[in-house]
Every structure is written in C-alpha cells, then in structure tokens.
C-alpha cells in the first residue's frame, strides 16, 4: 500500500512548492486541498518585497537590500526565519523549473521590475515571466495597450490613461475581431486557447498592424496561451515587428494558471498525488504527534495517515484561519494557537491609512526555527506538524507586496527540510 510520508494541506503557492520540493527529495507526498488556490487570481509573478519600510515613498528597487533591513528589524518575519540565502535558492529553484517548461521567469533579488498592473499602476515585482518583461516601465519607448471587444475582464483605456498620467507614453486600442464577435462569452481561458492557434494570431496581427503607429511595444491582457505562451509572444512579435508583453487581467489569471500547472506537473512527475475537493476538517493526535488528518468525502470523512503534515491553508484571506463572532482567531484544522489580536477592537488602529498598519494583518501562526507551530511557551505543538505560507505570523504580505515571496520561500524551506530528513532516514 502506498505509504504517504508527507501530507500537505493546501494548494496555493506555498503548498505546491512544499509538495514539489519534498517529492523531488524522494518523499512520498500527497497534497489535499478543498479547491484550487490563490495562484488563479495572482499576477503570475513572484513579488518578493515591493514596499519596505512600509512608509517609504518609493517601491523597493533592490529586494536584497530591503530584505536585509527587514530581517534585521523584524526577526520574527517569515523571511527572517528562512534567511536571504534560502530565499535566493527558492527563487532559483523555481526559475530552473520554469525554464525547463519553456516558460522562463526573469529577474533576481538585486532588482525589482516595475511593470504595469491591470489598472495601469506601477507594480514592483522580483520575478516576471518572459511574456511580461517588455512592459518594463523604466524604459521610455511608447506602448500601445490592446483590448478586445466582448472581453470584459480587461480595460485598455483604463491602463493607458493611468500610465499616461504617470508619464508613460501609452495609448489604447480595442479590436473587434470576427472570431469573437459571434461568441456569447469571451473569457481569459478561451482567449488563451485561441492565441495558441496560428490563424487567430494572424487575425489579431492583421487587425492591429495599421493601428500601431510609432509605438515600439504592444501590451496585451495576459491571455497569450496557457501552454505555449513564450512561443505565442515571439510569433506575435515577429508578425508585429514590435516587442510584445502581457498585463495581468481580472481573475482567472492565465499566468497564475501556468505556474500552477508547472508545479502540479512537477509534483506528479515525482510520484506525488495532488487531490482537490478534499477539505481537511479535523485531525487526531497522540503523544505530541499528529496521526491522522480527516478530509470531507461523500457520506463520510476520509482518513489520511502520514509521517509528517504540512499546513499551507493560508491565513485569514485564504481561509486557514477564521475569525469567531467575538473576534477570536482560530486555525481551523488543528485548533493551533493564533498569534494576533484576540478581541475585535484590537484588530484595527483608528487611522485607516496608518503607516503602522493594522494588527490583524500580521496575525497568524508563530513557529519555531523548523517552521513548526508553537504554543505560548514557544514549544512545538506537534513534533511532526509544519506550516508554510501566509498562515504564518509576522508578515504583512499585502502591504509589503510579499505574498508570493513568502509563500515560495517558506514552502521551499519546509519542503527541502522534509526532503533532507528523508535522506537522513535512508
């Protein structure tokens, strides 16, 4: 019988990276999740640190420097637990994986990209896929932002107008394509599918060419193919004679799905299982160890036994931690102690835009140096339970723009640690 060694709970970036790293290290991994996770509504980039200190006027230009400061000033931040060296290793592991999937992610800790967001804001990010990098806003060449009639999840006028206001030479164009005209529904996955067909690209290029004028680059909503995006981008560039880049659109995010698919396939290639529709609802423990996690199934709960368990269910935003009506915070599966305000009045400060931030956003699980959730005395609650991702306390991932970085780095740290234990045991 397949003996599961590592049971990972959660299919966001942290859970997938943990499972991938543990499986790559030779462990028998099963990942269970209620449904697919946050990657489906993310930009598909890796934001490591966009703003630090949080009241700084400008975005971080060198994540490495800002991280050094953050780690010094916040020794309990998830990044401080991982350490800059391992953060860098995590980024490079993901880059290697994506490169092998013909979907290179460019960038490094030395430099943040500034790329246009779905509303035309400047978006600092550390790693960006090759399909997005020509949108670099530190370059001066004028751009055209393309949208499609009937596609309601991307507004080229909004992007271009906002960019122009920030002194980026941008204007918008809308294409009314025959291929979309008689369709009743045009969604991002549908466009991604169409862009993988040469005849559709041809149609787009022909409609677009006369409208390009002196623009040196062309921004599309991020729908340039699900499996062969880089190929699609290069083909469009050849046809248009200009650089092409993608701008994230409203969810579902095609670039997020690409990363999701690459990670899921990496886990499966290593013999790991990825199972959704299986919400973990409770756990049994004995002698300080988790024995079994139960997931919801038709007419019953299904038990999963394993040697180690990883909690990657997200924080308040992801549903791994919920708030009771009285304001207490509760971790839903194991009932782990949550660090953070325990009365609703302490959740927020009085000033809405206070630079100090609101306490509830840095709530989460406190962990030891091995990422095991700890009790009030700092001792691990269970010796074989680990936590990764935004369920951890001490970060402020939204304001810092560190959501993906924290998920990736902590998932990597936990996954490699479990892989190493396997090697020791062998």
């Amino acid at each position: 019988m397949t003996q599961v060694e590592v049971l990972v709970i959660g299919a966001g970036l942290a859970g997938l990276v943990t499972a991938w790293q543990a499986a790559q290290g030779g462990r028998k991994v099963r990942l269970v999740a209620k449904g697919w996770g946050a990657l489906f509504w993310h930009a598909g980039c890796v934001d490591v640190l966009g703003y630090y200190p949080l009241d700084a006027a400008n975005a971080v230009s060198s994540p490495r420097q800002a991280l050094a400061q953050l780690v010094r000033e916040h020794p309990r931040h998830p990044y401080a637990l991982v350490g800059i060296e391992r953060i860098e290793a995590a980024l490079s592991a993901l880059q290697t994986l994506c490169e092998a999937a013909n979907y290179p992610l460019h960038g490094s800790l030395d430099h943040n990209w500034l790329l246009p967001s779905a509303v035309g804001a400047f978006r600092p990010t550390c790693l960006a896929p090759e399909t997005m990098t020509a949108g670099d806003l530190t370059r001066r060449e004028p751009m055209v932002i393309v949208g499609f009639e009937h596609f309601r999840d991307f507004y080229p006028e909004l992007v271009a107008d906002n960019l122009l206001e920030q002194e980026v030479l941008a204007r918008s164009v809308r294409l009314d394509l025959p291929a979309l005209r008689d369709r009743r529904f045009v969604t991002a996955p549908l466009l991604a599918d169409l862009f993988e067909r040469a005849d559709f690209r041809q149609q787009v290029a022909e409609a677009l060419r006369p409208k390009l004028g002196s623009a040196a680059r062309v921004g599309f909503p991020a729908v340039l193919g699900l499996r062969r995006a880089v190929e699609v981008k290069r083909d469009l560039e050849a046809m248009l004679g200009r650089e092409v880049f993608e701008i994230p659109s409203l969810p579902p995010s095609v670039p997020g799905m690409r990363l999701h698919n690459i990670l899921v396939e990496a886990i499966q290639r290593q013999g790991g299982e990825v199972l959704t529709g299986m919400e973990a609802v409770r756990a049994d423990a004995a002698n300080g160890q988790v024995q079994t996690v139960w997931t919801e199934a038709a007419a019953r709960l299904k038990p999963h036994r394993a040697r180690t368990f990883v909690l990657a269910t997200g924080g308040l935003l992801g549903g791994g931690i919920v708030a009771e009506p009285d304001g207490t915070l509760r971790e839903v599966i194991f009932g782990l102690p949550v660090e953070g305000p325990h009365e609703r009045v302490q959740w927020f400060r009085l000033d809405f835009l206070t630079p100090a931030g609101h306490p509830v956003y840095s709530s989460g699980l406190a962990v030891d140096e091995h990422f095991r959730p700890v009790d009030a005395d700092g001792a691990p609650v269970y010796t074989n339970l680990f936590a990764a991702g935004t369920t951890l306390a001490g970060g402020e991932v939204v304001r810092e723009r560190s959501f993906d970085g924290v998920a990736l780095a902590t998932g990597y740290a936990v996954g490699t640690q479990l892989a190493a234990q396997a090697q020791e045991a062998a």
Partner: protein
Amino acid sequence: MGVQVQPVEVTLDNCIKCNICVTACPVTAVTDRFPGPKYEGPQAARFRHAGQPSPDLSVDYCSGCRVCNMVCPTGVKIAEINARARAFMVERGAFSWRARLRNNLLARSETIGKLGHPVAPLANALLNNPLARWAAHVVLGIDRRAPLPRLAPQRFTAWFQAHPKPSGATRQVVYFHGCSTEYYEPRVGRAAVRVLEANGFQVIVPPQNCCGLPLLSNGEFGAARAYHRSNVRKLVTFARQGHAIVGTSTSCTLTLKEEAPELLDAYDEEARLLAEHTFDLNEFLLTLAEEGTLRTDFQPVPLTAVYHPPCQYRAHRLGFPAVELLQLVPDLHISVSQVACCGIAGTYGFKREKYEIAMQVGRPLFDLVRQEGVPIVICDSETCRWQITHATGVPAVHPVEVLAVAYGHPPEGPLASLLGG
C-alpha cells in the same frame, strides 16, 4: 464517521467570483452554448424563483461531471445547483415532450433492460440496426453514433442465483450491482463476487433497483425519488445490521451516498444510514487493506493499461483507491489519466445535441489512450468505458475484473482475449 452537510442553496453565498470553476469546466471549454459553472450556478441561481421564468436555459448543457465542485476553493455545490435548475425547468415544462420522452428512455436503463432482456437478440439487433438508430436519431434525438450497450445473454442475478456459495465465509457484505451489471456487463458483477469471496465474504445480493442517477441528471426528480425511496426500503435493514453495501458502479454508489439525499433533500434517518454504509468497491477493499485483512497474494497480470478515474469517481473525494489496489498486482503497469472527464457523463453524450460536445470533452483522454498505445483501458464507470471504446476502439474493463484475474480466476470479456481465456 458522519459529516455535516451544508445545504445546496446555502453554499451559493460562499462564491467569491474567482472564476476557478470556469477554468476547469470541460464543457464550457469546448462549447459556447454553456457559459460556465459560475454563471449557471451561483450567479443564475439568484434569479431562479418559483413562478418566474428561468434566466437561461443553457443550464441544460451542464453535464453534471462535478469537476467544478472539485476545484472551487469555497465549497459551492455548483453541479447540484445546476441539477436542481434543470429539475426546475422540467417542472415548469421548459422541455418539449419529445426531449422528455428521449431523456426518460435514456434514463430508464432498468426498464429498458427488463423489457429488452427476454428478447435480447431482437433488442440487440434493433439497437445496432442503422435504420433503427437513424430513426431514433431523427425522431427522438438519441445520437445514432452514441455507444449504446448490448444486452448480455444472461442477467447478473440469474448467474448469481446459480453460483455455488463458498463454504467457510467468515463475514458478510451486500453487493449493489446497478442496472448496467445486471443487464449489460454481468462479467463485472461476477468479478466483484469472486474478489469479495476470495477475501472470505459471503456476498448477499438483495432485491434492489436503479439508483435513480440517470433520472436525477435529467431533472426527473419525482421518478428518481421513487427509485431512491425504494432502495432505501430494500437496503436499510442491511445497513442497520452493520453490513457494508458495496458497488462497482461508481455513480450508483455516489448516488446512494450523496447525490440522491442531497438533491432530493432526503436526509432522513434511513437514507443517511444507507449512505453511511455504502462503499465503492475499491474504497471498501482499500479499507480492508488498511486493516490488514485484504488478501494480497496476487498473481501477475502482465498488462500495460491506462487507468481513467471517472469524474463521478473523483466526486467521491477519496483520491484514487483503484490505483492503490492495482499497484499491488505484479506485472501490471498502469499510467493514470489526469483528464477530468471522458465526456459521456451518464446519458449526456447520447443526446443528439450533445454528442459532439461529449466527444470533444473526451478528446484529451482519447489522445492519451492512443498515444500510450495500450491494449486496454481500466475505468470504473460503465458509460465511460463504452465512450472510451467507442472513441478509441480500445476495450475497457472495470478494475475489479483485473483483481479477479490476479486472484486466479480465468479472465472474461476483453481480458480473456488479451490474457488468453
């Protein structure tokens, strides 16, 4: 261990409009006639009220595969919302009499089996007669290309009655065969009985009837309720005695466990008891393995196969018990299909207006089977097996048929021609 069930309507408030379900729905991926789970489910459901016209009849294009439910991060029961919307359409007379007649013919495989069986050769000839198929296509809307099964010469229960019961059985189990095993593929039931007996069970096959799923997925809730009630009445005594009720048809077991009580709001004490005691056969065998009471002295079965877990199997939310079992069989090499659905979805792919959609939904699976060049496909659900064979020409069997061979029983059906009968 029992579970708390969230009512279908309540779950629609959980929707956060992330569109993840839309990216996963295999039907919306291939046809513009179906906008996708989010729109049809949690969104349109807000506008469906008794006495008011339904906002969009396209919900009938939902195949009920439940792929959306499996990926939704917030637990919206989208497929159930859609199934109820279809029942609502039936109730309001939104379907023509012709469509309802066709749907009822397809959904009553038990009645067809009962009527057809005594005249099986004639019925088979008719079902395979191009002229008759053409007429059914034009008049009824049953696609003439769709993979209709053939009635078997001997019903499963007739075989079972004549089958000598083994002596020395130490435990008892109830077998739910379903209509397909009874009338079309009794070899699956024979294999199930042999595998259970090999593990020291006395197999009980009590009177039972169609689980009602085909009716549920055609919106014929009234008739489905009668079937479900009747099964509850016939089987609940066994559940009370603590017997497991195991089935080889994954959609029948899912219906008894969840679909029927949930869609029909039939969570009374008896239906609940039956649900809690119903098991998919692989699930059941795997529990035995976990307790250490499964015989694992399997003989080699030298075969390479693609295993396809049907969408209805995934909906049990058990992972892949069949894979775990088949991995114990020496010399059997399986590659597991990750394709969400073969397209047929019960009676869906038999319908003229949906046949092409179903074939396109299944295309990635058919490509996989061809590309792997395997001589056989293993799949738990009967209509999926028929669809796969129809599309690829590769025969398909239930996992338990392979296990029966691994326990030393002579292979039957497609396995006989491959392994030498």
